[in-house]
């Protein structure tokens, strides 16, 4: 029977001889990740399970990124807890100044390979679908069981095929592709399903752009969003992957729950308006809205590609006097590369705050939260009420070109009108 990519990965990671959509199976994990928020809650649950050792320390990664650097003494204690537990269990640990945002670190460090099952105590673990892995977010008790036994329970999901054709126009990025998808599925349309991104438009995307696309699969309610591995994936993993891998694809004739068409030739820069990622408009239709803060960063859009786009806008220009602009490289590696390429100097000269890699304000943790009545334009993935601080603030989601242009103009504008 022809199978989808997701089914093939899950079948290879369970004891069942055959699986069908909706079956509950125990799935073996290749990587288990948690952070300073989800980790300590999981450690407590694992202790309550009476388990003292993790199933395989080499497959476990802990990343201190959410309240990093610690915003207060309580957060500092959480960081210490994460570090001490990690050292005691001999797992991979990325501390302040050593890693960055968890998903970026896992990808850069070669932990994620096509066909792997990656679970994380973070909903954006779907990001790892960019490399052809089944990456999915779990709560802390699930993570505790995964740390203990290397397994989690999972229903076999159906797949929505996203067929991307045409060529991206200027100022259109991976962010716009995924916003266009969510505009079609709605924020719950992907529930119990996987998004699979195919077609010439998908194959033409760089790994950075695939990361931005896969990152927001969960905003459609999906379990994960996967790009079948191809030559771009192979080139990225050359000399980086820590384990051997084989490309996996959906079989010809595999059944899909739905097919979504995205035509890049007709796609404009998009923006998710407050307070839902599915509240998508064309940037061109909402220009003129005043912006108090611009935030460029996060696990989907803090890549060197995003930083280069922003730098192109900020070079020789300055941040509008009524705007605070923050830029957050997603990892130490991205930070270092931006330094080498001279991008950080461009940002400093333009009047941005250049932050250390962190989740920070992306989830309202610190490092730039919003006051009541403020409007922000960010490259992050969620614009729920209160996500970045006050519940009375408004968050708009868009790509790095659009965010940087708004920082210069002080309002939502088409990037072409600034550059």
């Amino acid at each position, binding site marked *: 029977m022809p199978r989808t990519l997701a089914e093939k990965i899950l079948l290879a990671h369970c004891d069942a001889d055959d699986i069908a959509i909706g079956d*509950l199976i125990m799935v073996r994990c290749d990587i288990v990740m948690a952070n*300073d*928020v*989800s980790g*300590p*809650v999981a*450690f*407590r*649950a694992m202790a*309550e*399970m*009476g*388990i003292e050792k993790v199933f395989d320390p080499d497959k476990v990664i802990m990343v201190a990124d*959410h*309240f990093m650097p610690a*915003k*207060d003494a*309580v*957060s500092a204690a*959480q960081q210490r*807890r994460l570090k001490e537990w990690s050292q005691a269990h001999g797992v991979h640990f990325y501390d302040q100044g050593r890693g960055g945002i968890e998903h970026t670190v896992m990808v850069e460090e070669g932990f994620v390979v096509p066909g792997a099952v990656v679970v994380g*105590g*973070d*909903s954006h673990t779907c990001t790892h679908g960019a490399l052809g892995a089944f990456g999915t*977010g*779990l*709560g*802390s*008790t*699930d993570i*505790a*069981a995964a740390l*203990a*036994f290397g397994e989690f*329970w999972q*229903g076999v999901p159906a797949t929505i095929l996203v067929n991307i054709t045409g060529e991206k126009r200027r100022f259109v990025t991976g962010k716009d592709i995924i916003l266009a998808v969510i505009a079609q599925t709605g*924020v*719950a349309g992907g*529930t*119990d399903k996987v998004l699979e991104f195919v077609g010439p438009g998908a194959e033409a995307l760089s790994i950075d752009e695939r990361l931005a696309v896969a990152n927001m699969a*969960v905003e459609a*309610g999906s*379990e994960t969003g996967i790009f079948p591995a191809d030559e771009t994936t192979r080139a990225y993993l050359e000399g980086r992957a820590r384990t051997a891998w084989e490309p996996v694809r959906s079989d010809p004739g595999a059944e899909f729950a739905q097919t979504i068409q995205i035509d890049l030739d007709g796609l404009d820069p998009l923006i998710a308006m407050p307070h*839902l990622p599915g509240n998508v408009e064309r940037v061109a239709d909402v220009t003129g809205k005043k912006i108090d803060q611009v935030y460029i960063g996060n696990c989907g859009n803090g890549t060197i590609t995003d930083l280069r786009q922003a730098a192109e806008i900020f070079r020789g220009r300055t941040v509008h006097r009524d705007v605070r602009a923050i830029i957050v490289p997603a990892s130490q590696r991205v930070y270092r590369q931006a330094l080498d390429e001279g991008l950080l100097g461009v940002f400093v000269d333009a009047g941005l705050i250049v932050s250390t890699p962190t989740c920070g304000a992306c*989830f*309202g*943790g*610190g490092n730039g*939260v919003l006051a009541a009545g403020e409007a922000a334009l960010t490259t992050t993935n*969620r614009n*729920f*009420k*209160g*996500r970045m601080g006050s*519940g009375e603030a408004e968050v708009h989601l868009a790509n790095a070109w659009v965010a940087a242009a708004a920082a210069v103009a002080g309002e939502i504008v088409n990037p072409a009108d600034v550059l």
Partner: protein
Amino acid sequence: MILSGNAVCVRGDNIDTDVLYPGSYLNTEDPQRMALFLFEGLDPKIREELVGDTVLVVDDNFGSGSSREHVPQAIRANGITCVVGKTFARIFYRNCFNLGVPAIVCPEASAAATKGSQITVDTAAGVVTVDGQAFQAKPIPPFMLDMLTAGGLVPWSRRRSA
């Protein structure tokens, strides 16, 4: 397993885990402390309704967004015995079962319930009773029922490793 309580209704679709438990309070692993911030970004006054055993009644795609288990942990720590809704977001749904506070999919029961309704859930039969009126819920698969009967994923895992 029979669960019961008085209905506390939180209406609206796509209620996300950020409003249910805002990010700035995530720096704790203690469920008793988590209990203090449930509904903080939505309406903190809802917490005053959580007296005795309660059943949380919700609409569509409840618990969307973040995987933060602080939400169902705080739900459990506040004496909510189960959640009855139209549909749930995936990670929130799993988290609830893992913690032994099931998320029951039953659109009719959700629609029928009002503040203070007497609700009883028979998890094995998949029946939700609202003020004496019975509704059929989406069946709970055997594995999840087994885990629930054990008390959640922690006791289930303890049993597994014994």
